[in-house]
């Protein structure tokens, strides 16, 4: 069964179309990454799945059931804009959120999650006394207690240090292993590449990418060369047939123009400097993102031309 089925959904705010005729199917048990620039429609889509916003047109089904204004206890939602009742203590707050969603006492689960995320010592502390990272972990626990069938995380790793980010990541993957479906939005392309089974990109309210990382990369072909040279960036500048350079510091990604022969690029490069590595790779998600949403994006240009 599909966890979420979005069919021809449109949502507007005044004159702005936040989501335009979106259709998307999220298989049960998958980790689905939502990417896209700020204001592209990711959060609006998530809020519609959670039923906070209602679509103007189209329909959304969660585990086969039409969203109809009621609240589903099977969905755990971590919003991008984080806020908690600051005067409550951590244990009471988590029990409140858990009981609100699940309809039953969740004391044992809360205690277990606090231990798992190394927050047991904070159980009696007021939320206002916690650090930002601790607050985010508390909010994450509020999202997963009781254990949801569908977990929706809007930029869950933003602002977290690597240790806290790892703890959350492991917890998310553990929930997936236990059967939860996960939808997460992120601006970190490496998170999308490494964690997600499927990636969906929305840009200006329209779906522009949807599939596995491999199928998305296949759409963009083998037009990227990754090189490392002794001279670094200066050696690759102005190479014939190279359309765009993405400097990664120790290496560079070169995007070739259509019809360009990679052997010619290699010869030209060898003539300039000593080459330590040269490989033909699929474009990274970061590169694809920039191609779509960058200032000289193809989609953006097409839209502007059409306008």
């Amino acid at each position: 069964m599909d966890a979420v089925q979005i069919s021809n959904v449109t949502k507007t705010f005044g004159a702005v179309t936040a989501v335009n005729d979106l259709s998307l199917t999220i298989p049960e048990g998958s980790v689905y990454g939502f990417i896209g620039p700020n204001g592209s429609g990711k959060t609006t889509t998530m809020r519609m799945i959670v039923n906070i916003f209602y679509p103007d047109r189209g329909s959304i089904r969660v585990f086969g059931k039409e969203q109809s204004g009621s609240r589903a206890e099977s969905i755990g939602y971590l919003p991008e804009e984080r806020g908690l009742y600051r005067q409550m203590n951590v244990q009471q707050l988590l029990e409140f959120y858990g009981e609100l969603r699940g309809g039953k006492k969740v004391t044992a689960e809360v205690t277990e999650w606090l231990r798992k995320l190394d927050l047991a010592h904070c159980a009696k502390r007021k939320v206002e006394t916690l650090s930002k990272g601790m607050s985010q972990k508390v909010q994450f626990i509020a999202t997963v207690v009781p254990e949801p069938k569908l977990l929706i995380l809007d930029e869950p790793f933003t602002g977290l240090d690597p240790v806290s980010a790892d703890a959350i990541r492991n917890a998310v993957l553990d929930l997936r292993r236990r059967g939860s479906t996960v939808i997460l939005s992120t601006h970190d392309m490496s998170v999308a590449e490494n964690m997600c089974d499927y990636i969906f990109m929305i840009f200006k309210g329209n779906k522009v990418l949807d599939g596995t990382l491999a199928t998305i990369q296949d759409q963009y072909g083998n037009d990227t060369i990754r090189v490392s040279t002794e001279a670094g960036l200066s050696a690759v500048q102005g190479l014939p047939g190279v359309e765009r350079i993405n400097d990664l510091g120790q290496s560079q990604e070169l995007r070739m123009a259509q019809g360009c022969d990679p052997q010619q690029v290699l010869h030209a490069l060898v003539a300039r400097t000593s080459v330590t590595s040269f490989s033909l790779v699929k474009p990274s998600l970061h590169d694809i993102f920039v191609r779509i949403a960058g200032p000289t994006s193809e989609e953006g240009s097409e839209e502007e031309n059409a306008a």
Partner: protein
Amino acid sequence: MLHRILLIAKRDYVASVMRKAFLVGLVIAPLLFGGGLFGVALLRVTDGNKDKRIAILDRTGVAAPAIIKEADAKSTVLASFGDGPNIQGHYVFENVPVEDGNPIDQKLALSNRVRRGDLFAFVEISPEALHPAKNAETSIALYSNAGGIDPTQAWLVGPINDALRRIRLSQLGIDAMNSTDVIATVPMTRMSLISRNESTGVIQESRKGNLVEGITVPFVLLFLMMMIVMIGAAPMLAAVAEDKMQRVFEMLLASSTPFELIMGKVLASVGRSLTSSIFYVIGGVLALEGMALAGFIRFDLLPWFFVYLIAEVTMLSALGAALGAACSAPRDAQQLAPMLILPVMLPVFLLVPLAQQPNGAFATVLSLIPPFTPLVMIMRQAMPGGVPAWQPWVGLIGVVACAFLITWAAARIFRVGILLQGKPPRIGEILRWAVRG
């Protein structure tokens, strides 16, 4: 659904009543509302009980002794009334002979004595006062720098006119100077209407009205309800606006519908109001019993009081939640606050006309307009004449219907407004949200 509403209500209720601000407010609010009366009483005790010296400038040449005699008699009667301290003070009179020359010079000199505090005031009796022509407004003039509500003028009218009447009668050959009967004023007693008990058929006797029953009880009930409604409902706007700014609602909205959320919050407000009302009502009853004034307690009105209180708090806290959801900054909440307190403040602003004609058309209509019904109707019910039996029920139906309507509309406004940021919406836009959802 009910479980979620109760859970939200419980959290909000506990969070608010456990705050120091609530506990302090419980004690401070009656002091603030009653502070004016306390201040007046304090002033009367500390300042109002001093003797007040009044000069009589008698241009009739015959009236001053009679006036002073009448006024002294009245002052003596009042001063000997009751066993308590003399909080009125005495009026002490001084007969000032009329000087030759320009009258304005003597009045300037007397005015300066008032400014120095040597005199409290002076009264000028013109020659026409004995046989006044029509519209002779300035026949008797009181010169004073006391405040506009100083009772001296009203106090002096009686003794002065009594004295003048005695002189007129004497001039007609009737010896009225030493007779109390001739010009005696017979007081009029205010009585309640006689009524027949609908169920038993027994005719109920009229009761003698008094100040406590006629004015104090209705006013106390009105102010008590206003105070409790303010404690329960007024913080809602700022609290929702603050929670919105702290971004706590999005997670809640993922687990509960806007209607459940707003109903939970409204229920918490009602709980807060009932807590404070029980505190005040029990405290008030015990205090009055302690002062042997329990007879003035209108136990028959308490059920109405609580029903109206719950309805009013429901209406206003739902409205407060909706307006709070439309706020994006603390200043927005300040700008919208008058909308929330208007239904409570308007009856207080209109207190005098309402009290003068509690069964007039204006008071009746106002008491049947739902946002104003609880305060105005309870005041009218507490007046000695009462109200026709159907009116409280019609008012109650209107209030309950209005409470449901406002809560429903507030939930729609809340759902749209709660996640919006940036420029605050206009009133027209908020109303559109209520209609379209």
